[in-house]
């Protein structure tokens, strides 16, 4: 169970003008700038749930996850994960939590994965039986049995990500934070990682928070999504609802002699707008369809939620 109550995080940075002159100036006068990475957000997630956290770069996703993992201290607000306060850095909490970052490696680069796994076994005090069982299960489902004895730096990006996943799940965490686990992977590797997360989730029922820029990940894995914009939540609810909420809009794809363009129009104005287009352009093809989830989320990320 995760409970977040009016959580706020501010970063203080100093503005430096570019160039040598700017550096010299900032020696004497420093202008402070406070960036609000999280603006009083609240959230509740229950056991077994998997939640997709979506937002543009800098919207605050990673900050939120790092606070939940106990890496970053919040400025104010309350957080409880499985009854623990993450930034008290309780070892009991750390033992049932896992963080996987697609952009940062945790396994020893120059060594075979199995060596890192043995170290993790020691760190998490995983008992022999569970370790063997988990190793077997994870390498089987991820299909990396033959890569465990190869030095990690010699593996492909996709294989490496699978090894990272294994390393993070050996201690069978109850809370999992997945920060862009599919970033940079090719389509088939993305799919494999996705399939794995899905089957892991249904087998062990952890709480999972997933961030990703690939809508495919979100659509496949997350029945519930939270959309972030500039440090706040703009939507929190079922993924399926989002299409209904924006159901009052239609998309038009118009092809004329010289170009193709797309429009989103309120349903009630559809007839008027369409005839206007026919009058003003030399239309070859016109297509009316419901907005896709990708389009809706993109527009929420840009403009926030608006009721039509």
């Amino acid at each position, binding site marked *: 169970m995760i409970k977040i109550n009016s959580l706020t995080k501010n970063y203080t940075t100093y503005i430096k003008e570019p160039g040598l002159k700017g550096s010299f100036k900032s020696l004497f006068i420093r202008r402070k700038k406070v960036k609000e990475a999280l603006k009083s957000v609240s959230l509740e997630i229950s056991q077994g749930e998997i939640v997709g956290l979506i937002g543009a770069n800098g919207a605050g996703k*990673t900050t939120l996850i790092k606070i939940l993992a106990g890496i970053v201290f919040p400025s104010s607000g309350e957080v409880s994960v499985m009854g623990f306060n993450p930034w008290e850095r309780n070892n009991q909490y750390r033992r049932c939590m896992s963080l996987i970052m697609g952009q940062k490696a945790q396994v020893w680069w120059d060594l075979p994965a199995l060596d890192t796994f043995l170290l993790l076994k020691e760190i998490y005090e995983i008992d022999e039986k569970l370790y063997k069982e988990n190793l077997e299960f994870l390498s089987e489902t991820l299909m990396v049995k033959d890569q465990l004895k190869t030095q990690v730096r010699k593996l492909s990006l996709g294989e490496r990500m699978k090894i990272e996943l294994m390393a993070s799940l050996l201690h069978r965490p109850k809370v999992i934070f997945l920060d862009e686990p599919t970033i940079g992977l090719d389509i088939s590797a993305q799919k494999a990682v996705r399939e794995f997360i899905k089957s892991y989730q249904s087998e062990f029922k952890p709480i999972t928070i997933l961030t990703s820029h690939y809508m495919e990940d979100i659509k496949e894995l997350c029945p519930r999504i939270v959309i972030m914009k500039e440090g706040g939540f703009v939507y929190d609810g079922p993924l399926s609802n989002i299409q209904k909420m924006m159901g009052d809009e239609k998309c038009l794809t118009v092809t004329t002699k010289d170009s193709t363009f797309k429009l989103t129009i309120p349903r009630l104005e559809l007839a008027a707008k369409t005839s206007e287009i026919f009058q003003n352009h030399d239309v070859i093809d016109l297509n009316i369809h419901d907005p896709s989830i990708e389009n809706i989320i993109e527009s929420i990320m840009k403009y926030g939620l608006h009721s039509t």
Partner: protein
Amino acid sequence: MKRYLKLYLHFLRFSFSKAMEFRLDFTFRIVMDIIYYFVNLALFKILFLHTDLIAGWTLEQMMIFVASYLLVDAINMTFFSTNLWWLPYYINKGDLDYYLIRPVSALFFLSVREFSANSFLNLIIAVFIFVYSIINYTQPWEVEKLFGLILLLINGAFIYYLIQMLMIIPAFWTQSTRGFIDLFYTLGLAMERPDRIFKGWIRIIFTTILPFSLIASFPARYFIEGLEELSLLHLLSVSLVLWILILSLWKKGLRNYSSASS
């Protein structure tokens, strides 16, 4: 405690299997360090051609001191220096994340995870120099004194580590700690001088907040001429206070850690 020893054995295994792969670097470092040892030993031998006593010590007494700081330096190079070299970069680039989520002390992990197998051979050479200087020592000495000297030098290596951390931890607040670390290497030469040559406030600094004199000079004096109880107590309490200071600064630093990222 037992768990941390076990973890350390893993680090050892990792480091040796890695070192075997990079053989050129391996040989190069050993040659460099042998030159460093040679220069240190030769310097004092040459000085003693012109005088009988330096800071109240004869050549053979001075050799005990030189062997002592070479040993501390070798311990530092073998156990800590690779880790501490990278630590400020990790802090700035936000690479502490994976260390901070583990159920073990992050400070322990970050301080000793890279055992420098390359320097290990030099540690052995330093031990030889140390044994040699003891064998060549003609004054009477007791076994307890030798035992005490070794313990104090291990404590000295720990002090050396703590002073380095004192220079590194500001990285949580500033962009770069290169300045502090350069300062450390400049002042660090104080470790290689007998403490008697420092007077006044310089002496106070080198025996309290930047206790370079407590690393090898005090221990050598303990072996050669004995230390008063008060000096011994001073040495141990400064080590302890510095340790507590580092632990609390580390905690404060983590509060400020912003984990730069994508």
